[in-house]
């Protein structure tokens, strides 16, 4: 240990690694946000295919969802980083992490969207059809508004867990370390102990709480839209 008191360690930590922490947090956020956005867009496409009346398409998407919901992120990441170059597909480390998180989050996102759609009572759709609404009209004014409002909460949870899962990137040598990787790096160089971990954990927890709070605001709005 370099300093005896907790305060001494903290100020040493802030002075020596403060900048690194902020930079790493930036990398963590960047990976999390990019992965979640691409994952969400992909999830929308997958869901459209998943509920289409074309059997092979439905089966294929179900298979995709089961595969990427059940694979551990680390296992997928190692496959992308060390397995794919064997077939001539080499991605840089950060894109590899993003690719792994996109595959996993799109599977969970697709599941969320589908259960949101299935939460809509089929009687409402039948009623809308008997009133003469077209398929587009039913989707736009009956199904999507209700599905989206029930889907906000699970999607917020998904976003937080994507940011948390970006820590798996610590296990491949990302050039600009993300938060968890930075902490392990600091501790292999200098044994600064508990505070290094607490600071990083607080970054994660605070991010989750902020996203959760924003999610609740969006959810309230979505309910009003109904």
């Amino acid at each position, binding site marked *: *240990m370099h300093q005896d008191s907790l305060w001494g360690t903290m100020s040493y930590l802030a002075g020596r690694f403060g900048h690194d922490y902020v930079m790493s947090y930036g990398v963590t956020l960047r990976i999390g946000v990019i992965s979640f956005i691409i994952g969400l867009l992909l999830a929308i496409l997958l869901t459209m295919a998943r*509920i*289409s*009346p*074309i*059997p*092979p*398409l439905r*089966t*294929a998407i*179900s298979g995709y969802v*089961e595969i990427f*919901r*059940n*694979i*551990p*992120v*680390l*296992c997928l990441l*190692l496959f992308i980083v*060390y*397995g*794919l170059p*064997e*077939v*001539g597909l080499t991605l840089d480390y950060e894109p590899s992490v993003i690719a792994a998180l996109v595959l996993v989050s799109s599977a969970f996102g697709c599941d969320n969207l589908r259960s949101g*759609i*299935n939460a*809509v*009572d*089929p*009687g409402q*759709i*039948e009623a809308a*059809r008997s009133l003469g609404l077209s*398929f587009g009209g*039913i*989707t736009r004014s009956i199904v999507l508004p209700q599905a989206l409002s029930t889907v906000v*909460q699970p999607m917020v949870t998904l976003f*937080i867990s994507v940011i*948390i899962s970006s*820590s*798996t990137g*610590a*296990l491949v040598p990302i050039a600009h370390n993300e*938060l*968890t990787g930075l*902490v*392990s790096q600091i*501790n292999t160089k200098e*044994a600064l*102990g*508990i505070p290094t*971990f607490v600071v990083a*954990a607080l970054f*994660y*927890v605070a*991010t*989750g*709480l902020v996203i959760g709070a924003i999610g609740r605001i969006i959810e309230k709005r979505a309910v009003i839209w109904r």
Partner: protein
Amino acid sequence: MAMTPTEAALFEAAGPRARRRILIGTIATSLVFAALVVWLLMRLDANGQFDPQYWDLFASVNTWKFLGAGFIGTIRASLSAGVIALVGGLVLMFGRISGIAPVRWLATAVIEFVRGTPTLLFIYFFFLVPSQFGIHMSTYWMVVIPVSFYASAVLAEVYRAGVQAVPAGQREAAESLGLGRWQVYSSVILPQMFRIIVPTMVTQLVVVVKDTTFGYVVTYPEMMQNAKVIVANSTSMLPVYLIVALIYILVNYAISRFARWLSSRSDVKILVA
């Protein structure tokens, strides 16, 4: 894959034109998927991935023995973490619903902190910090403790949702019979809560199994770690990672299916934690 009632309601009974379109779509997507598979296989072949040198290690019993040992390591760590979380989650849940405000705040803070922090960060913590204080810890506990932390925090919330799902009349009836707080929980609320949350608890086991892959970091011999060792001692990367990924997917898929079966059999929903 069968359609749910809502999905079936979305589409009208198809007329001749729609039926033809669905048929064309079916043929087209089937062709695209077939082409995709062929392209994938050709790509693998072009890179020599079907060469026996990459696959013949799977003909050796030792490879499977070693992977099997890893599989047992994964199961052992998962079950231990799961059992610890059953108790840890219950303690946290009682703290979370306690009538004493500071206890409630503390439990809430612990739950939020653990749920909001990557398990990997805790793994690094137990990997790097105890040794700085001269404490020796086995790699087994370096995996099991962090994984059970996270599972406890999640289970605490699952338990709480389960307690809330027990009808309020049950508690009122128990109290009016003169049962104490402890008895109300132990003989009326908890037995019903467990029935409600069993499927949800089983789905959480998937997360636990996934988290044990971080044994890779601390060299605890679970399946991911053993795969790393096999890869380091051979030339075949892709086949090993592919096989291991398949095993994980199958195990977790089986657990999720089991949870869904439990849920449909006992007619209780899987709660979202």
